């Protein structure tokens, strides 16, 4: 079956709360991209198909943010020495924000 969407009414949009000030998304800003896969936080990691709760972000105690799946792939390798890719400090996940 082929469905053609002619019209839609957007009623809401979501964004991860990455603790940035200012209103309105700053498109293409470096800060809005996962440093590992270079895809936006609101997009999903390259192994997922759908953004949202199934492909969440992960916050480090060092304040750096990544797609959780991307970061876990890195931390799972011995080469990572369990360090944050950005500042090489020992990775610690921030529990709440």
């Amino acid at each position, binding site marked *: 079956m082929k469905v053609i969407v002619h019209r839609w009414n957007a009623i809401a949009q979501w964004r991860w709360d990455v603790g940035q000030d200012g209103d309105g998304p700053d498109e293409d800003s470096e800060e809005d991209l996962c440093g590992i896969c270079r*895809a936006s936080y609101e997009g999903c990691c*390259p192994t997922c198909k759908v953004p949202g709760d199934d492909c969440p972000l992960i916050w480090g105690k060092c304040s750096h943010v990544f797609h959780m799946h991307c970061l876990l792939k890195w931390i799972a390798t011995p080469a990572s020495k369990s360090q944050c*890719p*950005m500042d090489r400090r020992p990775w610690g996940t921030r529990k709440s924000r």
Partner: protein
Amino acid sequence: MATFSSRRLTKELVALREECPAGITLLSTEDLKSWTLSLELLGESLFKGEVFALRFTFGSRYPIEAPEVVFVVNDKYKAPMHPHVYSNGHICASILGSEWSPVLNTSTICITLQSMLASCKKKERPEGNDRYVKNAPLSPKNTHFLYDDDSV
């Protein structure tokens, strides 16, 4: 995992085609596995006027794993005469080995290597170059380098 690397490489390629760092030019990108870029130093340095070529080879686990990066050595290009660059093009640089991070990319690697060359004070080969080159594995990724010099 293949899509992981190809998706990021596609993004990098778009950015590089739009704008390369100063002194860097894309030479060939036949596919998403191997790219060649030329590298030269702008400004005063021991390598002024010389043009080198870098070959990047990306594995399916890039950027979780570092790419293989070597200076091209053929009829047209030579490896720079530098204490961290072997005459076969292999580079001893910690960011390509134990200090790799997945937030590094083609562009930042090129810039780091430019600055490695720029800070060179004496054009010479690494100690034991001939011995290394004679026995070197095809890929420098199979070499266990010891990084002991932070000055250049």
